[in-house]
């Protein structure tokens, strides 16, 4: 496994290992109830989830060992480079997608509690502003797009979207 960041992969693989263990020993036994008849079958409802979780545990363990080996091999200057402090722009690049995700989530919440019209009127223009859109007609284009889509879904496709 070639990796850009072995340390990151190490934690990722550890996460998958823990997830697989949780699945095998807690989630599957508790979330898939089987009767004695099902248990007697060669193939019970738990078979595929156990197979997939076993696979997840096996492959994440292999990945973990590979990342560990890559981490040990990492030379000192590379380690230092990895530890180098991020600039403000780098922090913005890192966090901006999560901020957009928060906006998308708030779009969902507004859609759920106030309806699609209010959600679509409020959130996407905020997103446009955050994307450094400063021309008024861009906002107008968005509203026209939304109006067309709303009409298409409700009037043409018959989706009861409110």
């Amino acid at each position, binding site marked *: *496994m*070639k*990796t*850009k960041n072995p340390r990151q*992969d190490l934690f990722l693989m550890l996460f998958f290992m823990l997830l697989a263990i949780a699945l095998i020993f807690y*989630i*599957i036994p508790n*979330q*898939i*109830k*089987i009767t004695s008849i*099902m248990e007697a*079958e*060669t*193939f*019970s*409802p738990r*078979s*595929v*989830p156990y*197979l*997939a*979780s076993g*696979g*997840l545990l096996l*492959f994440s363990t*292999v990945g973990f060992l*590979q990342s560990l080996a890559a981490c040990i091999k990492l030379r000192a200057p590379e380690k230092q480079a990895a530890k180098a402090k991020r600039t403000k722009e780098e922090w913005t*690049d890192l966090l*901006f*997608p999560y901020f*957009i*995700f928060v906006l*998308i*989530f708030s779009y*969902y919440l507004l*859609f*759920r509690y106030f309806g*699609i019209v209010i959600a*679509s009127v409020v959130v*996407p223009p905020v*997103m*446009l502003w955050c*994307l*450094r*859109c400063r*021309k008024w007609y*861009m906002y107008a*284009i*968005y509203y026209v*797009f*939304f109006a067309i*889509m*709303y009409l298409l*879904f409700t009037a*043409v*496709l*018959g*989706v009861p*979207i409110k």
Partner: protein
Amino acid sequence: MLSILSEIINAQNLLMMNVGIFAGIIIGAMPGLSVTFAVTVLLTLSVGLESIPGMYLLLGAYVGGTYGGSITAILINTPGTPNAAATVLDGYPLAKQGRAGDALKAALYGSTIGGLLSAAALIFLAPQLAKIVEVVASPEYFAICLFGLAATISLSKDNIIKGLISAMLGLLFCCVGLDPAFATTRMIFGSRSLVAGFNSVTCMLGLFALSQVLFECNAARKAGDHAGTCGIKLTKSTLKLLDMLKYWKTILKSSIFGIIIGAIPGTGGTVSAMFSYNEARRSSKHPEEFGKGSLEGVLAPETGNNAVTGATMIPMLVLGIPGDAIMAIMLGALTMQGITPGASLFKAGSIWVYAIMGGLILINLFMLLQGSLFIKLFVHVSRIPENILLPCIVTLCMMGAFAINNNLFQNIVLVCFALAGYLMKKFDIPSIPFVIALVLGSLCETNLRRSLTVSHGDPFVFFKRPISCVVLLVSIALLFYPFIEKGIRMLREKRAKENTPK
């Protein structure tokens, strides 16, 4: 025949074909947005349509998007989609020589001919394959499902382990909901909405479309209101369709490569384009012109990448096994319409599948028409600033997810999968094995269960039957191929070092 034609030719179908092609070309021409994205976004609109116009919309986006990538590849040296990566090599030098119009026309003609030959291959090969598939039993079916999965995992060459992890996660997500045999609930965590399981279409909408907003937002923020610029002037083309006869060998070879590569699960347009380009250069009378502005260098990859469009549908329609993410999306769309792809679709009396295959020919012809008439418009539209596109994508995804079954639960699944898609890309986890496993999971499980029940629990049943044994061995070989290749390379390097005189 007449009934098939009347099924294909009606106003709604023709409109959907053209809308799909138009949107596909525009999205394909925008750097950063893939053909998969084009098909996923249009999936939101196909939800409310009947199966045939819905499929035409998606097929139009697929064919149009595959061609659209060549526009920016030729004009701004940036492939609109990965499929057009090889087109850049000769398309841009041609444009710099003042032959942008010729390069664009060559791409259009190549794409159309490749697409038409691929559609013809689909029409002739799929029914024949369906006859063979009718005698296939569950062990073979299970082996073929695993082959489809292994083929997509093997695509992530340097990341086989992550590909395998992604496939395992896909299988786990597929298990959520009702067990297909005993109807007992699995991993629903007390949520009634999860009883029906995860809708693969919503998951793909999140993974491929909404997550794109999160990938692209930094680039859009930095670009601000500035539209894309193009230093190359769009010149008028002097190329005619008949001029293509000069290159018939290149076109035919690229089409055959595209058809063969497209029919193999896990490959796709990018591999076919590269393969066709290399072969055209190898067999060309003027190989020295390649890379400096050869028309053949544009024709070959564009014919090759569009020649996969019909062929990729062969395993999807005949076996119900998607070879790539786009076919997985189409399979999801078909399942939503209550259509189960498989050999039974080809039985006498069923005109649906023939209408879909015949429609593909019309779609390619409409692409030729749109490409010839609106090329200037496509060039301008492809320069729309990305920051206006992203909020539009969010709105479309939200409305589309709700339209799947008029339930807000799909929207929260969409939002979660958007974040998952972003994180998967950030951590280099390929999302295609996840999607293929999610779509193929229940087919895998049903056939595994059936095989084991019939064989009284004998796990070697798959190796006792010749077809399933061969398919399983090929699947295993596919997974281990990158490791074997690496071992051979290391061995060669070691030998080379030993043979070098000190």
